[in-house]
C-alpha cells in the first residue's frame, strides 16, 4: 500500500497519542481506595478490645472540642511561623507557640504541592494520586469519604470563607459560605478582605460548630514576588492580627463545664524559593501546624516542633469532633492532643485509628495479613484486651500503667508501619497498560523511522501483504492468549483488562499488524538493502557540519532526558543547542559569502548566487539589484547575530527551571507594582511591533481586523489591571475584562475565517499559490492574535522576537542558503522548543499559566478553559510549526515534496523523544524524583505529542490541497 508521507506521519502521531494515553492511564493509576461511595459509619466502629468479655465502651468516644476554627493560610511556609520571620511579623502567634496552650508541628505535605490535592488530603486523610493535579483544572465534588461529609452527617454546622475550591469540592456542605476565586493572582488584598469581613459577625454568633477560613493572599504574593518580598511581612502581620482576634474571641466564649474550643493554624503547602509551589522541595513541603486550645498545657519555652504528616490532622480532627475517621485515611492520630486524657481513652483512640487503617489495608492490599504493620496491630489489640481486663478488675498498680504504656507504644509502632505501607501503595503502577502503550508507541516509531531518511513524497507500506500473512494471524492469536492470561491471572485490576473486548481486539490486531510491517520492512531492507545504500552513498557527498549538529543535537537532547536535572533544566539544553545552531548558521553564511567570493572573484554576477532562485520563489521580496546585493550580504551576515541577541534577551526575560529559577529576571521586574508604566509601555510597543511584523502579507480586511484586535488586547490588559490606560480615570475598579476579551475573540475568529475562505478558494476555484499562501498567512496571523491575547503582558516581547526571528531567518537564511525541508523543519522545531521555555514554561506543573484559561470567560467552562490554557502553554511550538507550514508552502515550487517531507520530519522529531521518554519513565519509576520531575514531564510529553499531532493533521490538509490542485 502506498500512502503519502504526510498522511502516514499524521496517522502515526495520532496513534502514538493513543498509545501514550494508554501508558499514562497505567502510569497514573487512580489511588487504591476501599470503595468510592462507602462512608465510615458510627455503627461499624469496633468496640473496645477486652479479653474474654464484651467491653463497656462500644460507642465512639465523645468529642474533645466544642468548636473548631481552622485557619488555613495558602502557601504558609514553616519558617513564616517558626522561623525568624514569624518572630518578627507574627508576634502573637509566636507567643502562643512559645508560651501558650498550644502544640506546634511541622506538617509535611506530599507532592504535588498544589492547593486542591492538599485540601483533599487534609479532608480525606488519603494521599491523592498525581492525577489529581490534572483534575485541579476541573475540581469536581469530592465523593470519597471525608471529614466534611462526616461532620455534615453528624449534624455539625459549618461555615466557610475563602478559596472557592472548597465550595466545588464540598457543595451544599456549608451553612454559610463565601467563596473567593484565586482568579486574579495579582490581587492579594481583596481576596483576604473578602474573608475577613465576615469574621466579626461570625465570631459573635453561636450557631456554628466548625469555621473554616482559607486565606489566599500570601500565596498570591508568593507567586507575584517570591518569599522574600517586602509584601510578605505585612501580610503575615495581617494574618497574626486575624489569629489574635479569633483566639481572643474564642477565649472569651470559653465557659466552665463545657468543652474547650480548638483553633487550628495550618498551611496547605509551602512556597519554593521562587514563590511558586507544586514540586517537592523542602520549603514547599514543610508547613506549620499549630493547635491552640485552653485544654492544652502551657508551654514554658520554645521547643523545636516535631514533624508529622499533613494527613495526620484528619484523624485528629475527626476524634476532636467525635466523628468516625474517614475510610481512606492513612494519617495517624497526633497523640500530644490527648495528653490530658486518661490512658484508657488514649488507647481507645489509638485502637480506633488502627482499626480503620487495618480495614483500609485489608481492602486495598491482597496480602495484607503478611504486612508487619497489620501483624503489629493484631498483637497490640490483643495486649490492649489483656490490659483492659486488668484495668476493669480495678488494678491500679505501677505494673498496670507500665503495661499500658507498652500497649501504647505497640499501637504507635503499628500505626506508623501501617500508614507507611499504605502510603507506599498509592504509587503502584499498572504495568500491563504501560507495556501495551509502550509497545504501540515503539512499534509506530520503528515503522516510521524505517523510511525516514528518504525524501520521497510517498511511502510504500507492505500492509496488505503482511495482513494476509500467516505470522500476522499467529501474532494475533498469541497476543490474545497473553491478554487472557494476564487478565485472568492477576488479582489487581488492570485498566487494559477492563476495556471492552472489541476495543482490546482492535488494539491486538493493530499491534500485530505493526509488528508484521516492521518485520517485512526489515526483511526487505536486508534482502536488497546493500546495493541501494551503496548508490546512495556515492550520490550523497556526506553530511555538512550543520547536519551533524542537527542530528547530534536531537539525539543528545533525547538522551539527556534520562537525567532528572536535565529534565528540570531542559530549557538550558535547548538554549544551548539553539545558540550553537545560530553560530553554525553564521559559519555557513560566512563560508558562502566569503569563501565563494574568493574563489569566484572574477565573476561579479555569481556574488549573490541564490538571488535568481529567490526571484522565482519569493512572493514578497523586492528584486535585489546588483547594488543591493551588498546590503543583502551584510543583512544575511547580521541575521544569525541578531537572532543570538534576541535569544539572549528572551532568556533573561523568564528565569525557569529549578536551580536558577530564583535568580531575578526581567519578567519579575516588570511585574512588580513599581514598574507598571514600563510594563505598559513595553506591552504597547510590542503590540505595535506585532502588527507591523504580521501585517505585510495579509489582505486588507484581516489587516484592519488584526489592528483592532491588538488594540482590544491592550484594552483587555488595561481592564484586568495589568497595564495602564493613558486616559484611564483614577481608581477604576478592576473587572474581568469579559467584553474586551470577547471583542478580541471575534477578530481572531474573523481572521481565521478569512484565512480559511482563502484556502478553500485556492483549492476549489482558482489554483493560485498566492491566494493559498495568503490564506495560510492569515490563519497564522489569527494564531498570533490569539497568542497576544493570552500571553501575560510581560511575555509579549516573546511574541515580537518570535515574529522578528521568523521574518529575518526566512528572508536571509532559509531562502538564501537553500536549506532543504528536513533541515528547516529541525530548525523550526528547535526554535519552537526554545520558545516554549522563553515563555516561562518549565517541566513543572506549577508554571502552567492557568489564568489564560479564564480570559473572556464569565465562569469556569471546562472545554474552552482547557483549550485556552493548552494553547497559551504551547504557543511557542505552535507558532513555529504554523510558520513552518507557511514557509514550506511558499517553497513548494522548489521541491514538490517539501510539505510532506517537512510534516514527516516534524512528526518524527516529536515521536522520538516521546517514545524514548516513556521507556525511560518506566525504567526510572522508582526514582526519588518520580513525582516531582519525571511524572510532570511525562504529562508535558503527552500533551506536546497531542498538540503536534493536531498540527500534523493541519499539515496533511494543506498537503492534500496541493496535491489535489497539481
Amino acid at each position, binding site marked *: 500500500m502506498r500512502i503519502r508521507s504526510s498522511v502516514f506521519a499524521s496517522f502515526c502521531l495520532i496513534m502514538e497519542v493513543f498509545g501514550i494515553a494508554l501508558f499514562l492511564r497505567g502510569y497514573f493509576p487512580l489511588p487504591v481506595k476501599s470503595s468510592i461511595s462507602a462512608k465510615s459509619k458510627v455503627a461499624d466502629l469496633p468496640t473496645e478490645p477486652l479479653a474474654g468479655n464484651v467491653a463497656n465502651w462500644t460507642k465512639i468516644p465523645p468529642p474533645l472540642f466544642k468548636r473548631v476554627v481552622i485557619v488555613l493560610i495558602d502557601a504558609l511556609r514553616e519558617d513564616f511561623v517558626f522561623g525568624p520571620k514569624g518572630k518578627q511579623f507574627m508576634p502573637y502567634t509566636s507567643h502562643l507557640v512559645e508560651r501558650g496552650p498550644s502544640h506546634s508541628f511541622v506538617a509535611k505535605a506530599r507532592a504535588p504541592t498544589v492547593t486542591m490535592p492538599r485540601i483533599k488530603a487534609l479532608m480525606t486523610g488519603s494521599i491523592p494520586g498525581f492525577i489529581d493535579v490534572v483534575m485541579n483544572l476541573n475540581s469536581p465534588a469530592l465523593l470519597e469519604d471525608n471529614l466534611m461529609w462526616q461532620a455534615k452527617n453528624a449534624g455539625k454546622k459549618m461555615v466557610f470563607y475563602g478559596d472557592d475550591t472548597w465550595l466545588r469540592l464540598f457543595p451544599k456542605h456549608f451553612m454559610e459560605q463565601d467563596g473567593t476565586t484565586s482568579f486574579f493572582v495579582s490581587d492579594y488584598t481583596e481576596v483576604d478582605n473578602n474573608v475577613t469581613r465576615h469574621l466579626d459577625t461570625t465570631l459573635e454568633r453561636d450557631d456554628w460548630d466548625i469555621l473554616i477560613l482559607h486565606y489566599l493572599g500570601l500565596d498570591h504574593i508568593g507567586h507575584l514576588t517570591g518569599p522574600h518580598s517586602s509584601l510578605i511581612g505585612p501580610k503575615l502581620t495581617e494574618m497574626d492580627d486575624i489569629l489574635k482576634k479569633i483566639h481572643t474571641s474564642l477565649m472569651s466564649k470559653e465557659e466552665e463545664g463545657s468543652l474547650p474550643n480548638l483553633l487550628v493554624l495550618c498551611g496547605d503547602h509551602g512556597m519554593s524559593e521562587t514563590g511558586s509551589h507544586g514540586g517537592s522541595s523542602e520549603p514547599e513541603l514543610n508547613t506549620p501546624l499549630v493547635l491552640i486550645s485552653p485544654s492544652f498545657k502551657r508551654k514554658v519555652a520554645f521547643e523545636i516542633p516535631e514533624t508529622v504528616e499533613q494527613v495526620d490532622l484528619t484523624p485528629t480532627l475527626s476524634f476532636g469532633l467525635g466523628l468516625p475517621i474517614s475510610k481512606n485515611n492513612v494519617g495517624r492520630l497526633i497523640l500530644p492532643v490527648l495528653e490530658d486524657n486518661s490512658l484508657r481513652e488514649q488507647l481507645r483512640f489509638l485502637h480506633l485509628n488502627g482499626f480503620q487503617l487495618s480495614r483500609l489495608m485489608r481492602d486495598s492490599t491482597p496480602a495484607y495479613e503478611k504486612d508487619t504493620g497489620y501483624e503489629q496491630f493484631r498483637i497490640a489489640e490483643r495486649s490492649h484486651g489483656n490490659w483492659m481486663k486488668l484495668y476493669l478488675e480495678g488494678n491500679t498498680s505501677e505494673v498496670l500503667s507500665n503495661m499500658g504504656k507498652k500497649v501504647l507504644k505497640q499501637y504507635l509502632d503499628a500505626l506508623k508501619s501501617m500508614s507507611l505501607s499504605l502510603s507506599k501503595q498509592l504509587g503502584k503502577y499498572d504495568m500491563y497498560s504501560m507495556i501495551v502503550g509502550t509497545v504501540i508507541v515503539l512499534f509506530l516509531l520503528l515503522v516510521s523511522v524505517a523510511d525516514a531518511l528518504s525524501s520521497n513524497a510517498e511511502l510504500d507500506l507492505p500492509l496488505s501483504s503482511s495482513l494476509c500473512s500467516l505470522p500476522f494471524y499467529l501474532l494475533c492469536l498469541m497476543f490474545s492468549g497473553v491478554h487472557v492470561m494476564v487478565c485472568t491471572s492477576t488479582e489487581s485490576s488492570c485498566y487494559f483488562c477492563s476495556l471492552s473486548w472489541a476495543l482490546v481486539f482492535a488494539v491486538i490486531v493493530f499491534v500485530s499488524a505493526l509488528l508484521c510491517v516492521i518485520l517485512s520492512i526489515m526483511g526487505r531492507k536486508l534482502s536488497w538493502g546493500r546495493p541501494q545504500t551503496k548508490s546512495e552513498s556515492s550520490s550523497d557527498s556526506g553530511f555538512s557540519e550543520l547536519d551533524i549538529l542537527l542530528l547530534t543535537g536531537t539525539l543528545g537532547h533525547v538522551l539527556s532526558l534520562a537525567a532528572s*536535572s*536535565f529534565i*528540570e533544566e531542559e530549557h538550558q539544553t535547548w538554549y544551548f543547542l539553539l*545558540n550553537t545552531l545560530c553560530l553554525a548558521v553564521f559559519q555557513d553564511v560566512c563560508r558562502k559569502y566569503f*569563501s565563494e567570493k574568493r574563489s569566484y572573484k572574477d565573476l561579479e554576477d555569481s556574488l549573490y548566487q541564490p538571488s535568481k532562485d529567490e526571484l522565482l520563489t519569493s512572493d514578497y521580496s523586492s528584486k535585489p539589484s546588483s547594488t543591493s546585493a551588498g546590503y543583502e550580504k551584510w543583512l544575511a551576515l547580521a541575521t544569525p547575530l541578531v537572532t543570538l541577541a534576541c*535569544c539572549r534577551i528572551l532568556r*533573561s526575560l523568564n528565569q525557569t527551571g529549578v*536551580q536558577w529559577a530564583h535568580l531575578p529576571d526581567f519578567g519579575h521586574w516588570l511585574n512588580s507594582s513599581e514598574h507598571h508604566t514600563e510594563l505598559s509601555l513595553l506591552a504597547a510597543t510590542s503590540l505595535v511591533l506585532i502588527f507591523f511584523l504580521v501585517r505585510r502579507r495579509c489582505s486588507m480586511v484581516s489587516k484592519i481586523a488584526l489592528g483592532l484586535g491588538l488594540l482590544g488586547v491592550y484594552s483587555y490588559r488595561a481592564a484586568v489591571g495589568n497595564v495602564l490606560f493613558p486616559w484611564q480615570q483614577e481608581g477604576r475598579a478592576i473587572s474581568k475584562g469579559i467584553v474586551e476579551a470577547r471583542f478580541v475573540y471575534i477578530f481572531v475568529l474573523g481572521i481565521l475565517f478569512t484565512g480559511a475562505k482563502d484556502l478553500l478558494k485556492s483549492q476549489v476555484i482558482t489554483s493560485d499559490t498566492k491566494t493559498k499562501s495568503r490564506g495560510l498567512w492569515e490563519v497564522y496571523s489569527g494564531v498570533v492574535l490569539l497568542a497576544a491575547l493570552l500571553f501575560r503582558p510581560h511575555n509579549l516581547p516573546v511574541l515580537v522576537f518570535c515574529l522578528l526571528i521568523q521574518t529575518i531567518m526566512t528572508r536571509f537564511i532559509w531562502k538564501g542558503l537553500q536549506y532543504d525541508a528536513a533541515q528547516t523543519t529541525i530548525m523550526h522545531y528547535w526554535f519552537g522548543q526554545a520558545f516554549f521555555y522563553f515563555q516561562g514554561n518549565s517541566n513543572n506543573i506549577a508554571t502552567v499559566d492557568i489564568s489564560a484559561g479564564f480570559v473572556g470567560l464569565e465562569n469556569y467552562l471546562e472545554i474552552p478553559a482547557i483549550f485556552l490554557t493548552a494553547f497559551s502553554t504551547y504557543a511557542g511550538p505552535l507558532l513555529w510549526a504554523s510558520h513552518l507550514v507557511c514557509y514550506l508552502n511558499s517553497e513548494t515550487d522548489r521541491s514538490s515534496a517539501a510539505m510532506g517531507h517537512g510534516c514527516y520530519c516534524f512528526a518524527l522529531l516529536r515521536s522520538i523523544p516521546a517514545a524514548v521518554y516513556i521507556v525511560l519513565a518506566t525504567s526510572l519509576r522508582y526514582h526519588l524524583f518520580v513525582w516531582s520531575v519525571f511524572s510532570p514531564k511525562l504529562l508535558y510529553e503527552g500533551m506536546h505529542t497531542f498538540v503536534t499531532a493536531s498540527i500534523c493533521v493541519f499539515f496533511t490538509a494543506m498537503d492534500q490541497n496541493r496535491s489535489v490542485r497539481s
Partner: protein
Amino acid sequence: MKDIEIKGMVSAHCIIAVSIVMATIVPAVLLDDYSVYGTHLVWLYICTASVAAVNIAIYTLLGVSPPAKKNTLSHKVTKVSKSCLYFMFSCLLFHGIVVLYGAPLLELASETFSFAVLLSTFTTLRCLCILGPNVQAWIRVFSRNGAMSIWDTSLQITTASSVIGAWLGAFPIPLDWERPWQVWPISCTLGATLGFVAGLFIAPIWIHWHRKQLTYKSK
C-alpha cells in the same frame, strides 16, 4: 621532508602539553592552598601564560610563520601590535559568545573574561603564531580544504577540539551533583584544556595517518 615536519610538530606539541601539566603541578608544589578548583583563576592565568609563552617561543624559533617581506623594525612593531589587537578582539568576541550562551552578564564577568582569554590562547594565539595577523590567511585555513601545510591542518584540529571541549564542558553545569568543578567556568575551562591537549596529540597522529591523502597545494 614530511616526516621531519611531523616529528617537529610532535615535539612542539609535546612541549606545549608539558607546559600545561607543569602549570598545574609546579605551583601546587610551590604555593600553599593551591588547587585547580579552589584557586581556579590562578591556575587559569598560570596555564594561559605558560601556554602563550611556550607557543610564541616555539613558533618563533621554528620559523613557521610566513616570512615577512620587509624585515624592518617598524614592520615588526606594527605586526606585534596588530597581533595584540587581534588577540584582544578575539577575547572580547569569545566573551560575547559565552554571554550569549547564557553566562551572567555582570556578575562573574571576570571569570567569564578569563575563560575567554584561555580560549583565545588556545585558538587565536596559535593562529597568530602560525599565520600571523593576516585575516585572509585565517579565512583560507578555516574554509573547507583550505589547509596548505601540516601546520594549517594541526591548527584546524586543535582549534576545533578546544572549542568542542569547551562546548562539551558546559554540559555538567546543570546536573545536581554539587561537585566543585560544576561551578562556572571551571568545567568549561577544563573541557577546553582537555580538548586542546587532545587536539595536540590527535593532530600529528591524524596527519601521519592521512599523509598519503594530504597533498597540499603549493603556496
